[in-house]
């Protein structure tokens, strides 16, 4: 998948080329305003890039919606639908008959920690559960590529760890290509095959770091020398990038 995406006038993004191999877990990290969400919106077809293209499997998908699964920061569960009916939304929009969609969704809800919740309304769920439902909705939309925009950003530290494990299990079961945005360096290293560190004004990729830690990973992987080296490098990159941009921010 290649997408060089320079955006005009405001130049939110400098020309960027990213190619993501199939089945990989790739993270984007960077400070706020570096254009991570812009990239996602362009890939999802919600923003038309001023120039550049989005190629999925070599096919031009620029400006077309419904090609990739996109999970936004908020869970955006519809309060008037039960968890099950929220999860089947993607299939419903793609005109899969409702009964069939429910039949396909139900075993997944049972398998991935939402059993017993399927007929509840989202208001009865905790933050972690809501994120699970939102993620399952994205997965059941059944696209090869999935974009996750800080899915665990609003969760408490403990739930976040649980959700990371859960996501790993899900990813290895489904074998999807995942693009993951986060602020959390440790989270990015722990989950990814490759990291792209981004800088601001204009948004650009300042470093691409492969993560060769063996899978399945365990929490103790965070103590491995390689993990720490990558973490240090990332923190340096983010820090170095922050200081010169500070006066620019003040001027604007």
């Amino acid at each position, binding site marked *: 998948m290649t997408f060089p995406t320079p955006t005009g006038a405001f130049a939110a993004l400098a020309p960027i080329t990213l190619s993501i191999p199939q089945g990989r877990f790739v993270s984007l990290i960077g400070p706020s305003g570096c254009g991570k969400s812009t990239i996602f919106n362009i890939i*999802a*077809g*919600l923003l038309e890039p001023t120039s550049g293209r989005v190629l999925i499997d070599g096919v031009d998908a620029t400006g077309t*919606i*419904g*090609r*990739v*699964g*996109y999970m*936004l920061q*908020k869970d*955006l569960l*519809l*309060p*008037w639908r039960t968890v099950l009916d929220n999860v089947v*939304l*993607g299939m*419903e*929009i*793609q005109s899969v008959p409702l009964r069939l969609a429910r039949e396909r969704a139900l075993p997944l809800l049972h398998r991935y*920690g939402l059993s017993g919740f399927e007929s509840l*309304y989202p208001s*009865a769920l*905790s933050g*972690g*559960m809501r994120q699970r439902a939102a993620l399952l909705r994205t997965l059941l*939309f059944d696209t090869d590529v999935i974009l996750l925009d800080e899915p665990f950003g609003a969760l408490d530290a403990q739930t976040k760890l*649980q959700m990371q494990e859960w996501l790993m299990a899900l990813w290895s079961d489904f074998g999807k290509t995942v693009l993951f945005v986060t602020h959390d360096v440790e989270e990015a290293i722990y989950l990814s095959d490759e990291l792209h560190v981004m800088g601001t004004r204009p948004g650009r990729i300042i470093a691409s770091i492969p993560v060769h830690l063996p899978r399945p990973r365990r929490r103790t992987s965070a103590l491995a020398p390689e993990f720490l080296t990558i973490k240090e490098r990332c923190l340096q990159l983010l820090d170095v990038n922050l200081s010169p941009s500070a006066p620019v921010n003040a001027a604007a």
Partner: protein
Amino acid sequence: MTTVQDTPTLGDMSALQQVRSGEDAPTLTLPRERGTENRPARHLPVQKDWPAWALVLAQTGILVGAIGGWELGARFGVIDQFFWSQPSAIFHTLTIFFTSGDAWTDIGFTFRSTIFGFLLGTTAGSLLGLSFWWSRNYAAVVQPYIICFESIPKLALAPLVILVFGIGLSSKVAIAMALTIVVSTLTTYAGVKALDPDGEKLFYSLGATRMQVFRKLVVPFCLPWIISVLRVNIGLALTGAIVGEFIASQHGLGRAILYAGQTYDIALVWVAVLVLSTLAVVMYATVSWLESMLRKGVRQ
């Protein structure tokens, strides 16, 4: 893994009350801070609830007292019977109104014009409000006109409406509709504006068409707004119908009130007002019930 959040309880407060009310309850002693010795000891104000029968007794007491006082006052000349009539006379007129008058025709007429006006106004207003979602440009163009129409005292147009629609049912329906449509439009539009753009983004990222977003997101999202005006609108529709009848009509409770007033039949005025109030209460209760049913269905 379930984390069902507990709602905060008033445990602390009830414990406090217990300490105060129970004689041999354990006492809690806290070290005093210096300089706070002179602070007055205040207690949590506690309001004791009356039993249900006492509340009903008080309520009926007021009613019986008022009507009894009115009747006695009228008999002993404290209250002028000519202007205020008296309960016994009103009751007498009420029986005549229902046995020999055209009570049911009047009630039916007012009821019909109110319901038609309510349904038409609410439906048209909600649809109009929802239609603004489809185009920001269209909404921007039309909105000033809606605001304008809202600020016009619509009842002032009533004579014109009667001229155009005649003195029959349709003119009353039109006035009732004019009163309700704006409220529904503006409230529904407020719902449309409160829509989270990220919700639309989610739908579009799933490849939805505009019609799908409208049907599966916009309409259910705005339903609570639409429902919330039902009670207001039933009152407005009734007002519209009555004003229409005041101006020119052959039937209706509004016409009955006007007619009775012009012929100095004050007891009949009261009777018509009483019947009208009953009608209003019945319709209001029905709509409230409908609203709670719909809310349950909508779950928000």
